[in-house]
């Protein structure tokens, strides 16, 4: 029984150390990924929330961002989307949105595209059988 206790103590000590060490590594590996489902972000399709506390949340797609938006609405100060044409950040209410046959982020089947200029949105709409949609973040 004494031998059992010794093994048990050693087991517990090793377990606690390895888990605590593992947690630190895991936290680092999650950084730079979508704040909704942890997927690696393609910068061209990213969405950013600037929160009232000064922090930022980033998402891999408009689908993930809109699912989070419904839960974080009160905390969000500004939503920024990325213009697919120029790859620059644009304020969400000023952007143009098109839903088309092109899937940007396959795991959520996101078909909504954001553009900074109306002409780019129209070009995409005509080329890929799209339709204009409202700003998903209001």
């Amino acid at each position, binding site marked *: 029984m004494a031998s059992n206790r010794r093994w048990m103590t050693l087991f517990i000590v090793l*377990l606690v150390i390895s888990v605590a060490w593992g947690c630190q590594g895991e936290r680092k590996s999650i950084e730079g990924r979508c704040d909704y489902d942890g997927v690696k972000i393609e910068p061209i399709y990213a969405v950013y929330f600037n929160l009232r506390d000064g922090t930022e949340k980033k998402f891999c797609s408009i689908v993930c961002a809109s*699912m989070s938006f419904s839960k974080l609405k009160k905390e969000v100060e500004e939503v920024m989307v990325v213009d697919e044409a120029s790859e620059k950040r644009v304020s969400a209410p000023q952007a143009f949105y098109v839903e088309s046959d092109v899937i940007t982020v*396959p795991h959520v089947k996101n078909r909504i595209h954001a553009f900074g200029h109306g002409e780019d949105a129209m070009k995409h709409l005509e080329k890929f059988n799209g339709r204009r949609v409202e700003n998903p973040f209001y």
Partner: protein
Amino acid sequence: MILNALSIAMIFIGALSVFLAIWGGISSLILYRKWKRPSRPEEKTSLEDRSYLVFLIMVIVLLIRLINWPLFYVTLQSFISDIEGAMCIFGVTQAKPGLTRLLEFVKPIIFFLIGGWLILHRLDRSTKTSPLMRRKLLLLSIIGLFVLVDAFGDILLMVGIAPESLVSCCTTVTDISSRATRTTPVAFFGPEYARPLQVLFFITHLALIGFVGVSLKFKIFRRPILGVLFLFSLLNAMLFLLSQIEVFAPAMMHLPFHHCVYCLWQYVPDSIAMYLFFILGTFSVGWGFTTDLFGKIGEASDSLPDYLRKIYWFAFLFLSAALMMLIVHLLVD
């Protein structure tokens, strides 16, 4: 079909298991029937020799099937990059949802049955008269049937999953508000269900560890008590799964709105060890009950208490380890 080292290993193991499960299952059934009849000493010796050969081969097959459960998930994980839209194992399961769901249901049952049988086999081998021989043969033929279904399913799945399949992954399925894992606790605790569910899990888990500890301490191994413990461990397992999906997995992943256990394994790999400890702990409680149920006969009854003590000691250890890992994760995070 997606070809890689793991899928080839799965198919090879599957084919081998199908062949040996048919042979082993039928052989054990025949031996079970013959074992009952009185026979001459030479016939008895021949019967024993054949039984040992069947056991020798089937033990290897069963050990391989034990490893097959984690290997199944490792193989699915290896398919992620080949399936468009899959970001975790959940996406891969959507390529053949019906068959994968069946296999995910059957594999833990087989793991439990095999573990229970191997303990009985070990108990029987510690005796001189092998009083559990007939029961072992009958159980082996039943397990052979399960192994056959499982192995055949593995082959069908490996052959059936087409590369470049387009699937939807977990985000659009496990995070919708009408998911069963959310609506069930909401029905009991209301919309603010997270905290009560968390507390309930800790209570049942600690209670289970406590009951197992008390049984060990006072050597209470009466069958009705072991049966109740087994049922309680199943209830605890259900609560574990529910609280993991709804509360702990999102917390451990730092993704408060994402409820996918497969993503947890991916982003927090040491959680796999926690799940392994939990499964072994819960199954050990069940194995204690099945060992008492099938092993209390003749000479085996004498060694049984010692075996039960060891099994429940493992249950206590593994359940405590799983709980400790969970607590450390929640505290460090």
